[in-house]
């Protein structure tokens, strides 16, 4: 089996989002970075599939030079090697991202063989475009199933389960396939210390694709107005219990 996971570096925004002066980006000077929880589950699933059946796992990102940290995080969880499409930090729209990822996948497959599975997050944490996986799947002419909470390989096919109103919808598609996943698919492991050390020595291939003009073009970001909550104190410690009960009664839930 050969399995690929596509991830994106995003800031951890904490309790309040602060924008840069030009309102074109989040001010990340005081923030840490991560990959989306959805994508972390994609990485974990890729590692489990290779652990169970043998083969080769790769992680791919399009992002600034610092995104190598997220590639190392994925390799610390057990991914074998990484491909880094380096950008100057400006945003790429979903269409351009998908085109660059597709090209990188085709190039890697020409050299090392076809990926049986390519994992994406259902949506990226920051831009939430809900599209890169489907676009890559179409460009590779492979079946695509989205929003998965369970993935089981059954011979030359994969059984895919999606959470829907009232239960789960099941799809069975032949390999090779493109799957987009959601958090809850699995519980990602914590990277071990030896895992982290090994990750530092695993190979990262970097290239610098050219950014096309976006057709979905960011004009500015806006932090939505608060919901007008006023934070009324009901007291401190256990002594506040009667006031809480009174509030619950007024709210009509008691």
């Amino acid at each position, binding site marked *: 089996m050969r399995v690929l996971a596509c991830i994106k570096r995003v800031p951890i925004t904490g309790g309040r989002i602060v924008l840069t002066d030009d309102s074109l980006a989040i001010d990340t000077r005081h923030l840490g970075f991560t990959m989306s929880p959805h994508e972390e589950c994609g990485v974990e699933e890729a590692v489990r599939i290779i652990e169970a059946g043998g083969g080769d796992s790769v992680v791919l990102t399009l992002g600034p030079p610092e995104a190598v940290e997220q590639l190392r995080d994925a390799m610390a969880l057990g991914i074998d090697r990484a491909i880094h499409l380096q950008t100057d930090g400006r945003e790429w729209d979903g269409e351009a991202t998908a085109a660059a990822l597709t090209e990188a996948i085709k190039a890697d497959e020409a050299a090392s063989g076809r990926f049986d599975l390519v994992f994406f997050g259902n949506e990226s*944490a920051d831009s939430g475009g809900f599209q890169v*996986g489907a676009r890559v799947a179409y460009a590779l002419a492979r*079946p695509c199933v989205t929003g998965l909470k369970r993935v089981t390989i059954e011979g030359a096919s994969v059984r895919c389960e999606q959470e829907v109103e009232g239960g789960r919808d099941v799809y*069975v598609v032949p390999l090779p396939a493109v799957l987009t996943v959601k958090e*809850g698919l699995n519980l990602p492991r914590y990277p071990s210390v030896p895992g982290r050390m090994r990750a530092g020595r695993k190979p990262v291939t970097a290239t610098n694709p050219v950014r096309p003009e976006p057709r*979905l*073009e960011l004009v500015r970001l806006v932090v939505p107005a608060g919901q007008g909550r006023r934070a009324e104190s009901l007291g401190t410690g256990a002594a506040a219990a009667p006031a809480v009960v009174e509030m619950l009664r007024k709210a009509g839930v008691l």
Partner: protein
Amino acid sequence: MVLVLVEQAGGNAIDPSLQTLTLARSFGQPVHALLVGSATDLTQHGVAVAHVAQHVALGAYAPDAWAAMLNQLAVQLNASAVLAAGTDRGNEVMARFAARTGLPLAANCTSVSPGPPLTVTRLRWGGSLLEEARLNSERPLITVAPYVVPIEPSSMPADVEPFAPELTDENLLVRVVEHVAAPGGGVSLTEAKVVVSGGRGVGSKEGFAIIEELAGLLGAAVGCSRAVTSAGWRPHTDQVGQTGTKVAPDVYIACGISGATQHMAGLKGAKRILAINSDAQAPMMQNADYTVAGDLKEIVPAISAEIRKVK
């Protein structure tokens, strides 16, 4: 004209699709709807023509078939824009549509100003941030964020026309082959009137006993933060937030949850928030309606005891 994919459940158009029809009228052009499989009454939603797609293979949901149909109809009608609700289905069908036509797609829009250039406002970070963007496209593809645009009725006797799509085997490769019903029981997080939710401050898996006790007394669902699911204290199905469940209770009780933007993204529909936290400066304490400062291990059992007293 603009074309809108209308999803149905139980024979009726779903609310997010009706919200999409309302937003579609801001283009100032006739609105046509695509319904898959069966017709439904859209006469109160300003629809000029409802096209009802019928095909033997449409019994089971097949997202590529839906995308192919939508594209065939858009081409046939020369639609100037195509919209769908920003539901799981709406977003995936439109992504596939965008992929096969090579057109840009703006997901989860909250408003549209017809151009040129067409500009949209859309949700990022699960709604914690808004983006204004230009959509440079000969046929804009848009999904509409659910429960943001209020439905505005507009009475119009929609013509109902059959539509016979051409579908290939390839369009039907990805299709639902089985539906597994969810086991019943318990209060569902999405529908609960009260949610009692615990964060890292609860301290352990066992620590959730007092959260469960309070939830039991209130007929509430138990929720939690991602710190809790990552630690394995609760299943992911309990997680509230951007990558968990979005809740809309009358009262949300956040115990030992700091209030990260990704957690708050799941609380947009909550009517009242009560924050219980030992740190008065925690963002949750600033973004709540009611606060109790202190140790949740004392406060939560005291609330349960008080409820027992008055019940």
